[in-house]
């Protein structure tokens, strides 16, 4: 490897997660010789497809990708690189053990009609108004998410421009929505929904999106912001998005990798970065496990900020105070993942009629009977206990994408189950010892709404929060690289003064979910980070001296 030891790039991206790939592709398109280094043998990070058994494929972690920025798809030509997105007409169906399922459709009128038929004319009437307000408020939030957060200590002209853009967006909302925006943003989602709806099942179905992947409960301030953020940048309203990748999420990673490569990015898998090298006071490259050194004037971390700052950097560079702050970043994971191969489509309570069942089950299948139930699961997490009744969000992607299961396979369907209420930090107990117990617990929960499902399981994969950390590089098992709470938001995500994607070391950037505007399969942080890297390159004459790949 001595040849490549002298190899220089303009930019190195550490970690081939979806944000890392997006950032790399944009940087390459901006003229930077870019190298992506991925620890595992394939890129994609949390956007991956797992083979449960021969011929049976399932979303490994993320199962719905509807928040992916349309501009990312467009700019990088992902469709040309084979990306096929499938959006069912249904968004989510909340299963109740004692009542008919509650379905949220992409079609607002259809949802309202069913709410009315289910007995609440009040909610039926309120729903379209709520959907309209959600679109309006998340529209303004989307503008906030698209800008690079300012540093209050060094306001720049670009910040003023961003502020003006936001101000205009705020004005455009009008008096009612404008006031609503400032009021509801820091609100607990439970209170926000109380103002609108009377049906607990409906409130729970919506509140879930405010706390998904988080250690927050629906009664915690800030969960309305996360609810709106989950809609921001999509064409979805209150119901949220449900979009599958044909072939599994791994196909999205594949398209991103292809687009990046086409743009000139070099991707190396099986290459683990152990540290970021610095020369003087700026980043100069990275060191791999085998000691190989690769030089670059720009190092972009696609990992979470805690790991990046505490493990890849020399503590002396960080200094005691920043080190202390980085150590206090809150990424207490609260989710696990259970993937199932099923011999047949489970029979869900209240979804007897096959065709109707199939139509509704194409959406996110949510087991969150009430707001209080979601809250109890969160309370358990806060107390370091596994929730008695974790909240489940399952999808059966094989219903919309038959290619996931080969005809020859002993399974007919796959089920991807997100489990929330499983803290990474437990007071007692050890995840390695409890992995299978967790799987059984989840199947037992599913039994309450789909009797007999246990007997249909032909293969099962259980990913505990510890597995998410060890095998998928998510520190403390947090899929969002940090709590999406108000104290780790906007200009202080990950840390105040370092929210402009520039980390404390010159030339070191952060491009993933731990940066503004946060987690989820959006490509947003990667897009924003690339913009800043390229802006710095234009700004910094010092860079002109950097040898290009050809000169090396």
């Amino acid at each position, binding site marked *: 490897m001595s040849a490549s030891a002298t190899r220089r790039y303009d930019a190195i991206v550490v970690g081939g997660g979806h944000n890392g790939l997006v950032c790399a592709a944009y940087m390459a398109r901006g003229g930077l010789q870019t190298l992506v280094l991925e620890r595992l043998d394939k890129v994609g990070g949390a956007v991956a497809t797992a083979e449960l058994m021969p011929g049976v494929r399932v979303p490994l972690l993320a199962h719905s990708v509807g928040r992916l920025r349309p501009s990312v798809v467009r700019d990088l030509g992902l469709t040309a690189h084979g990306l096929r997105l499938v959006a069912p007409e249904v968004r989510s169906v909340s299963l109740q053990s004692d009542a008919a399922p509650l379905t949220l459709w992409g079609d607002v009128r259809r949802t309202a009609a069913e709410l009315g038929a289910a007995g609440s004319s009040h909610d039926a009437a309120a729903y379209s108004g709520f959907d309209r307000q959600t679109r309006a408020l998340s529209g303004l939030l989307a503008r906030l998410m698209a800008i690079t957060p300012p540093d*209050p*200590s060094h*306001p720049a002209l670009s910040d003023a421009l961003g502020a003006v853009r936001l101000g205009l967006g705020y004005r455009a909302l009008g*008096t*009612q929505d*404008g*006031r*609503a925006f*400032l*009021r*509801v*943003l*820091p*609100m*607990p989602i439970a*209170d926000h929904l109380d*103002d609108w709806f009377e049906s607990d099942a409906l409130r729970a179905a919506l509140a879930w999106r405010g706390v998904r992947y988080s250690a*927050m409960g629906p*009664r*915690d*301030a*800030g969960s309305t912001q996360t609810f709106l953020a989950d809609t921001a940048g999509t064409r979805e309203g209150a119901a949220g998005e449900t979009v599958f990748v044909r072939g599994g999420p791994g196909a999205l990673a594949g398209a991103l990798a292809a687009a990046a490569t086409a743009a000139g990015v070099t991707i190396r898998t099986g290459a683990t970065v152990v540290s970021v090298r610095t020369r003087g006071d700026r980043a100069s490259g990275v060191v791999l496990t085998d000691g190989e050194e690769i030089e670059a004037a720009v190092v972009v971390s696609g990992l979470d900020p805690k790991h990046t700052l505490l493990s890849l950097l020399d503590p002396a560079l960080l200094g005691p*105070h920043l080190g*202390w*702050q980085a150590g*206090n970043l*809150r990424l207490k994971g609260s989710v696990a993942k259970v993937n199932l191969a099923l011999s047949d489509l489970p029979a869900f309570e209240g979804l007897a009629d096959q065709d109707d069942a199939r139509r509704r089950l194409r959406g996110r299948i949510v087991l969150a009977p009430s707001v*209080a139930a979601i*809250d109890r699961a969160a*309370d358990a997490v*806060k*107390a370091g206990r596994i929730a008695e009744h974790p909240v489940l969000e399952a999808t059966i992607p094989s219903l919309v994408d038959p290619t996931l299961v080969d005809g020859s396979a002993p399974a007919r369907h796959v089920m991807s189950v997100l489990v929330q209420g499983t803290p990474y930090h437990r007071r007692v107990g050890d995840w390695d010892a409890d992995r299978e117990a967790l799987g059984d617990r989840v199947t037992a929960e599913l039994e309450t709404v789909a009797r007999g499902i246990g007997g249909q399981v032909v293969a099962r994969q259980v990913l505990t929060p510890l597995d998410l950390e060890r095998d998928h590089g998510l520190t403390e098992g947090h899929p969002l690289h940090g709590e999406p*709470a*108000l*104290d780790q*938001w906007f200009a*202080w995500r990950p*840390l*105040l*003064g370092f929210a402009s994607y520039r980390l404390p070391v010159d030339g070191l950037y952060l491009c993933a979910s731990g940066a503004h505007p946060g987690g989820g399969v959006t490509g947003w942080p990667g897009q924003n980070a690339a913009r800043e890297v390229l802006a710095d390159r234009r700004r910094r004459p010092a860079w002109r001296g950097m040898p290009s790949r050809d000169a090396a």
Partner: protein
Amino acid sequence: MARSWDAIVIGGGHNGLVSAAYLARARMSTLVLERRHVLGGASVTEEIVPGFRFSVASYVVSLLRPEIIRDLQLPRHGLEILPLDGTFTPLDGDYLWRTNDHAQTMREIRRWSATDAEAYEEYGLLMVEMARFIKPILSAVPPDTIRPDPRDLLPLGGLARTFSKLPRRQQTAFIQLMTMSSSDFLDQWFETDPLKATMAASGIIGTFLGVRSPGTAYVLLHHYMGEIDGAFRAWGIPRGGTGGVSESIASAARAHGATIRTEAPVARINVRHGRATGVTLESGEEIEAKVVLSSADAHQTFLRMLEPETLDPTFTDEVRRYRFRGSSGKVNLALDGLPDFTCLPGPGEHLRGAISFSPSIDYMENAYIDAKEGRFSRRPYTDVIIPTLVDPSMAPPGKHVMSCFVQYAPYHLADGSWDDAQRETFGDAVIDVIAERAPNIRDLIVGRQVLTPLDIEQTFSLTEGNIFQGELSLEQLFFNRPVPGHARFRTPIRDLWLCGSAVHPGGGIMGAPGRIAALQVLRSRRLAA
């Protein structure tokens, strides 16, 4: 024939009285109308058990604004605040005892954790800096969020400039204080559970939030506010109970020429052609005034005292949406002697301060979880004060009064509602918690008064028993308090103003709302003139 006044102030609570004093001081003929036979609202002293005088509701002075004490010369009108010496947290076989003697406190915390002792210093300094930064906000007028008036934005702009010049770690601390849970915030500094729990407790007082709820960290600051307010300490008890504060403000108001009537409950605020013209008492008596200030909460003022059709329905909806959800109760005890704590037996200095039943963060959070489930905490957080140790005048010689502030007691119970039986079981739960650590308490009790949120609502006209006239949650602060777009002490009715804890900066015996409201009224009259 009733005469006409320049100003009528509805409610003789401490904020109403502060408003009245400032208006009278500006030569406005001012009339205060108090529903009860005593002044002070929740800041009141009453003799519940013969010979025993209690600060019935509010029991300590935290943030009484120094400018009010100065402007109204309250000490000359009898205000005297006696320092509370520290906080004692009794535990099983041990205790955590922080006093105003810094060295002693450091030794005590070091006994628990050397690193915590070190952090405690740094934390304290940071908090004082924070308090210094936040202080101006307490006397600022919130801007209109839709059509901002540049004059209101100036002080805020100044604040933004100050913020941009703060050291990074102070900027960060400010943002964290506004957004974090007190538990998460303190976790950054400390490891000692009882220390964190006792400090975090100040973050949840009066709110329907737990120590792990985001938004509770901010109140941690209040403990440090006092330190920069000069002569007066952060926490203290007024001589004669919290009623002493109200009495001194009332006396100042009278000295400036204000008239104060008790047992004069207001039934209606009279409105003609969209402007307030006076009030009608429940007796039917009509009193005219150029301006009416209400120190009652938003529900009382807008939903009870105004004819329904006077207000725009969307505004009324927003008022209805405003959250109260009272969460606290109060137990006042008349004692034959002093409680004897197993962990630190005998009488002593440790009884002279606050005695906080907050052994751990889990204990605090579990008390909150009970409330979320719609029942009062089986093992409640209890903040105990024995005023007679600093002010013997409150009880007969050798006897004592004990004030127990309790959380959580939700206004809405999941099954049933607050009745006499519920009240007593609630009271017993509190006594049990105290008796666990001070077993002799039961034999000492010669009289007890238990206030449930319902009692607080009925006695003090505090909707749902919320002691702050509305939840101090992030979305109900500053320019959203009480209603977005109407946070500037004015109301949709011309010449009707709010001057109680219902408006910025909210509750506590601070007097700030009363003062800012009065100054706004005076300013508007100057502009009109």
